[in-house]
């Protein structure tokens, strides 16, 4: 019995070693937890920072859009019919009468065209042949096509 106890004692670790191991384990878990927390906090803070940037950018976009609308409105006011007439009169222009105009034939002259604010809407063309038949036909269909292909077509396939 004593023999067994002695052998057990010989192979057992000292209490301080056990404590160090325990503390090591605890610290490992703690460090791992801290690392996870740090990574989580880092990612979360960066996400929040980018989120704030998105919110700020969207706010800026709204401001810019409003400024564009404001400038567009101001420009329209500055070039309004009454304003342009007033400026023309100030500059010494006066309305022309129909008898005061000299008409000339100018080859290639184009009349005022309707304003084009955007491209004309095109009819939607559905292309049913987007995928090459090579990707859709079966081996059997391919062989059949080779067999029944007219001679001229085979000739065209040659280099």
């Amino acid at each position, binding site marked *: 019995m004593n023999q067994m106890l002695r052998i057990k004692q010989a192979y057992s670790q000292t209490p301080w070693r056990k404590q160090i191991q325990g503390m090591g384990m605890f610290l490992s878990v703690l460090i791992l937890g801290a690392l996870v927390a740090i990574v989580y906090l880092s990612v979360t803070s960066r996400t929040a920072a980018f*989120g704030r940037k998105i919110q700020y950018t969207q706010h800026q976009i709204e401001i810019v859009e409003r400024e564009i609308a404001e400038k567009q409105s101001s*420009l329209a006011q500055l070039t309004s*019919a*009454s304003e342009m007439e007033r400026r023309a009169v100030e500059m010494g222009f006066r*309305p022309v009468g*129909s008898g005061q105009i000299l008409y000339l034939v100018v080859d290639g002259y184009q009349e005022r065209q309707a*304003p084009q*604010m955007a491209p004309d809407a095109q009819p939607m063309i559905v292309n049913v042949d987007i995928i090459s038949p090579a990707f859709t036909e079966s081996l059997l269909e391919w062989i059949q096509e080779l067999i029944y292909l007219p001679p001229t077509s085979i000739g065209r396939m040659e280099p």
Partner: protein
Amino acid sequence: MRTGYSYRYTAVGGLFLALALALLFQLVRLQVIPDKDAFIKKEQAFLENIQIIEPARGLIYDRSGHILAANTTVYEVGVDLQTVQNPETIALTASVELGLDYYEVFGLVSQPPSNTARYVVIDNFVPYEKAMKLEELKSAFADATQVQRSSNGKPHSLVGLELRGHLIRSYPEDELAYNILGFVNLEGVGAYGVESRYNDMLSGQPEYVRVSNDPSRATVLPAIPDGASLILTIDREIQAMVESVLRTAVENSGAEAGSILVMQPETGEMLAMASYPQINPNEYWDVLDAYDDDTFYNMAISPYEPGSVFKAITMAAALDLGVVESDTVFIDTGYIMVGGIPIYNWDGGAWGPQTMLGCMQHSLNVCLAHVASEVGAADFYAAVEKFGFGRPTGIELAGEYPGRVRQPGDDNWYMSDLATNSFGQGISVTPIQMITALSALANDGQMVVPHIVQAVVDRGQQYPTTYQVAATPISAETARTITEMLAVSLEQEASVALVPGYRVAGKTGTAEIPTPYGYTSDLTNASFAGWGPVDDPQFLVYIWLQKPTISPWGSVVAAPVFKQVVERLVVLMDLPPDDLRQAMAMP
């Protein structure tokens, strides 16, 4: 373990177990209680809010791309009660810069924040310039190193004052084309004109999105396409000219109201549509004071009795049916009995033998009543219907009146109505109906649908409109015959409507105005309809002056207005005089 401590461990363990069970029970309970939806909503309200993304309202352009309706930024001025530092400064600033009542604002801003009041609006629709001034003041207070103290001892501060911008409609041309455009009210809904007719397209589709309050969950808001824009057929320069002429004509003639329309008879495009009295759509609240029972927001689509301009329609129908020809002679005895009612001429006189040309030239009621009787009620009203009277023309404007034509079979139709209708009395039409019907005379018998929208621009694509032929009420030959008759009648009469250098066809109109007691008023509706150049009509002009006081006659008050309009119109349309144009057209 000593037994003395074991009960304590058991007690602590039991306590923790009880707490865990209680938590578990509460978790399960929250999933099944009837108020669970309310809890979820409260949680969501805390985490996120619903934001409405309003697309910018589409713009409206004239045919050359000038902006007629734009958007401008205005601001809502509010105060965040949770962050406000000095209510006195905010009240003082609002009083000085916005003209608000100091004590009212001070009372609003001084209240403590609560669940129901955390943010208060002190003003709205503040113009851009004033809002920028407030922003400058706010920045100045924030940046100042030394700030004076107010009477409450606190340093002056505008912290808590917030400005939130939003777009509203603006009309840079002010009154110009107000009747075509309409306006947009404070709720953002279009009223009258194209603003009302195309409200859904112009306003776009607002979208409700959930926006997280947590910045780490911020997402890019969806890009909402702006509302569709409209390109009108209206020419801004022609519209401005016509409005100016109309304003002067109404003032000079002492009329109450009026309208002038200019159309391209071949396509039905409206180049101008003026109406008087005008309002400024930027101050649309004046609309209630500007109009009464007799005047309308847009006189061009409102009903009236046209008078003798309608004789052109009656004569065209009779010529087309082969009932008369231009040289058919009628002996005018000064009156005719139709349905037991005597019909007299405008001057009460008898004009003797007259060809149809003479009947039109002298605008003889008796002759036209005779012609209508010869045509017969069935064919006459069938022709009137073919010309589109009694129903809206379909022009893209809100509030178009259909007019009213009483027909045989109606309770209140009498045989005498056939005679009076033949010269434009007892029949209710709109100027847009008249100009549409007359387009058949100016366009080889083809009556076009009047339109005012040239194209719609939506999501980066432009959708042009095309002109449509509404009907062919008369043949091309009849159209050319009646046009020639009306051109010759103006020339023989040496009408004041004649325009040097340009051959025009036209007809005057003077109509008595019905009252609840019959035709008892001395006031009239004076009209003139004309088109030209006769060999290739490029314009069709319709003039209506309501209740002129200097003279009741269309030939006196409306015909000169036609001349004024056409003299300037040919310049703006680049139309050379007839001889020059014909010489240039030769190879």
